[in-house]
């Protein structure tokens, strides 16, 4: 599905990603973990072309997308959420979900022909369906800026569901949530997002990762240090060391 071949990204002297080679298969749900500053979000940004890699190759379904622009990558069927929430604040909730579909291939700007009107109705229906999935149907006509954080995170998920992409990056979907709220989020991811698509979850909350992911990749200081089954990865000394320091690993 998605293959990264020795991808590198530097910010000045800092090697945010060095020689990352990794593949994600179809319909896989993978947890991407690592301490702060280990390059998790950089990896997402590099794949979605927020900024391009300095070296290496990115293949999506066999096509080289390394030098594609961000909007073309998105049109190929790669979607993402943002760690620090990006929404159109001055649009309604449903407006945000509809807006997510305007960039999809085949969208037309004007609705002159009957087909196009049907198309627009489809956007609306799709958006309402997606909002129902995440449980936001009751607030659909409120402005996005008026929602509390857990609902905003759900809105980002709804936006993804409406686009129906093949590959999804969820960047800290439960960031800033209480344990109950993040349990709900884990259930939502497992039930609605993960089926029938490749789903890569970046998260610090290990119970969420353990709940939804069958595979975990660990980044530390821009390098891939572990890749495999959650139960196996969580007990690897290198992983514990990366998270808790050398002393803890030997304890």
């Amino acid at each position: 599905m998605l293959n990264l071949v020795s991808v590198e990204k530097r910010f000045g002297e800092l090697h945010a990603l060095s020689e990352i080679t990794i593949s994600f298969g179809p319909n896989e749900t993978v947890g991407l973990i690592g301490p702060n500053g280990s390059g998790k979000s950089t990896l997402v940004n590099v794949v979605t072309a927020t900024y391009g890699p300095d070296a290496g190759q990115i293949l999506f379904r066999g096509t080289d997308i390394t030098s594609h622009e961000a909007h073309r990558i998105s049109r190929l069927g790669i979607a993402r959420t943002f760690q620090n929430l990006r929404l159109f604040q001055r649009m309604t909730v449903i407006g945000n979900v509809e807006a997510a579909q305007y960039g999809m291939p085949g969208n037309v700007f004007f609705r002159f022909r009957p087909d196009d009107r049907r198309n627009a109705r489809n956007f609306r229906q799709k958006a309402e369906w997606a909002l129902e999935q995440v449980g936001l149907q009751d607030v659909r006509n409120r402005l996005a800026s008026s929602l509390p954080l857990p609902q905003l995170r759900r809105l980002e998920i709804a936006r993804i569901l409406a686009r129906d992409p093949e590959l999804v990056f969820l960047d800290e979907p439960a960031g800033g949530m209480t344990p109950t709220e993040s349990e709900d989020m884990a259930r939502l991811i497992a039930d609605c997002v993960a089926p029938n698509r490749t789903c890569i979850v970046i998260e610090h909350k290990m119970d969420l990762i353990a709940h939804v992911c069958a595979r975990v990749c660990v980044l530390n200081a821009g390098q891939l240090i572990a890749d495999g089954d959650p139960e196996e990865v969580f007990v690897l000394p290198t992983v514990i060391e990366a998270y808790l320091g050398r002393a803890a690993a030997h304890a």
Partner: protein
Amino acid sequence: MSEYAISIASNMGMIAFVALSAYVVLVVGEISFGQQAYFGIGAYVSGMATAMWGWPFGFALVLGSCVAAIAAFAVGALTLRLRGLYFAIATLCFAEMIRLGLNSIHVQVEIDGEPVGPDGAEGFGDIRWMFEHDVTTLEYMFIIYALLGAVLVVLLLVERSNLGAVIRMIGQDPLLARSQGIDVGTCKLLVIVFSGMIAGLGGCLYAHFATYIEPNVFNVMLGVHALAYGLIGGLGTALGPIIGVVLDIGFLEGVRAIQGYRMIAFGGLVAILLIIMPRGILDEVRIHHIKRWLRRQ
């Protein structure tokens, strides 16, 4: 209607074109100090078309706005990478180059023994289409408002369409819009070209109304005024810039009591308005509430 009222109303109509063009650029998230250049290009080109080459008025309008749109395309393509203040100053530079360039354009032809055409800083007089075709100022005012109405209808339709939503997406967060598959560069260019076309059309109308134009009419003050009108009225609907124009030219010019202190009153009023409503009178949030209220009725 008195001649004075007609001239004020016509002026409002023509300035509204520039205000609308500045507004469209504001909605896509950029500030342009250069919309007056397209207004000027439209005015000069259409004036030359009717006065020098004897073109019919309608064709002159089309030619003027198309040339302005082409200029806007060139500027837009060159400045596509620029944002914020950089974009604003680049458009300012372009507009001033056009204005100063017009100062040194001398293209004149002999018509009835009189030289006609742009004469540098001396200006461009004798755009006599209105007299030659017996169009009264009142009739011309109707032409202005008919065209303004047409532009407004197009803008309001665009606003309701998916394209309108896409433009607002770019205006609010271009990075997010791009990550949703929107080709931000192309859309922005489209909007800039369209804005040039609107301003150019206004310029065509202005040239034939004023019959005399000079480069200094199209200085940066016109552009910044247009920008202010666009913001004062509100960034939520294309009706906003019209409100801005009416508020300044219509209301303050009309109220004789503040003659001589007009700008002091206007400046103070708008400054206070912007403190209370930083995105203008009819901003997106207020439009949202109005729409909801209308739906409930």
